[in-house]
């Protein structure tokens, strides 16, 4: 039995008819074609599905789309500027080689986005702890930490 939801995703308002059991991750990917959000483990562990929901990072595989009715969602696709300029976090992952296969990367970036919005100048330990909800099989996390440090410095320098 479909229900109507209205939510803002990356600044655009969408009204959709969805089954209550449709996960937010699947809504974003299949209904809105925003496939930047990845489904990795589907069991709330890996964090590849991380998005920002009303200003907080959440695992979108563990939220129903109906729970996001009336909410403000930001996904990876919402970070770059309209003219295509990368967000400093995206730039950091590029500059510091913070990815290999790229599967975890959207989640890593969205988690970093949350971390830096609440703790703009984190220590290395705080970065590692702050991203502990995101798993990466490729990088060993080292360059991810460097990417976040790059982003923090750039964001704090006002450039």
């Amino acid at each position, binding site marked *: *039995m479909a*229900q109507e939801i209205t939510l803002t995703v990356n600044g655009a308002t969408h009204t959709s008819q969805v*089954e*209550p*059991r449709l*996960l937010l991750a699947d809504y974003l990917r299949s209904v809105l074609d925003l496939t930047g959000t990845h489904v990795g483990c*589907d*069991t*709330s*562990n890996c*964090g590849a599905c*991380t998005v920002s*929901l009303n200003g*907080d*990072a*959440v*695992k979108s595989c*563990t*939220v*129903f789309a*109906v*729970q996001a*009715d009336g909410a403000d969602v930001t996904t990876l696709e919402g970070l770059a500027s309209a003219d295509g300029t990368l967000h400093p976090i995206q730039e950091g992952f590029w500059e510091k080689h913070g990815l290999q296969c790229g599967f975890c990367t959207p989640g890593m970036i969205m*988690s970093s986005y*949350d*971390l830096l919005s609440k703790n703009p100048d984190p220590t290395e330990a705080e970065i590692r702890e*702050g*991203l*502990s*909800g*995101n798993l990466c099989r490729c990088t060993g996390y080292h360059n991810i930490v460097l990417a976040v440090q790059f982003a923090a410095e750039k964001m704090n320098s006002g450039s």
Partner: protein
Amino acid sequence: MVTSSFDYYAPTSVADALALLDQHGDDAKLLAGGHSLIPLMKTRLAEPAVLIDLGKISTLSYINEQDGGLAIGAMTTYSEIAGSELVQSNAPVLADASGQVADNQIRNRGTIGGSLSHSDPAGDLPAVALALGAQLTTSSSGAHRTISADDFFVDLLTTALEPNEILSEIVIPALPAGTGTAYAKFANKASHYAVVGVAAVVTVGSDGTCQSARIGITGAGPKATRATGTESALVGLNLDDSAVRAAASHAGDGIDFNEDVHASGEYRAHLISVYAARAIRAAVENAS
């Protein structure tokens, strides 16, 4: 993964939620943060026909000072609790433990009410609720009642909540002067669930001896329990290292230890004494 189908309601008041609960009875489950329930539904271990989402009831989300202690709405998230200066001041162990749950994303959704109502055998907050002597207020159509934490955790994944009740508020009494609190857990490396977890609330008198102690245990058995053997062994003593260790050696008394892929019962029995000692020592150090 896809859950089974369900009807979904998002009431905006407790009264409306209770009316829905009365209407749908056993067909309905309450949805709080959803990070225990939704994974259970995705694996089809739970297939409720109706979900009543408490997430749009803004009146269930608050942290207030009350009589020197705290009154916390059941839908308050772990993140809100961990970051609250009021909780850090009036019940530091609650803020500390809340900040150790899972990870940032899960803490942004999971709630204190959901944690206590679900009563996961490895969840952190039930042990903390026991150690703090929390009083849990429930609402049902036309009634409220208060259940002490000591009476709330009944069995594996089972609480004293009746099917028509919603846990609405958690009251933490004021901590007496000279009280220190701490939470120590041996966390599973992947999930951060407690293989064992110990919450200690210890009051030290001006003569340096223990006036009272409440020790909450999780991860060890089917439900969170008080380590009453350890508690009584501490009272009246000077809390030096040997006294703490001796008392902590009783932390596992009466517990039917969990055996699973994460740890044997024997290892949990060993860990519980180690972590009880650590929690007590840390609480004593924090005592002011």
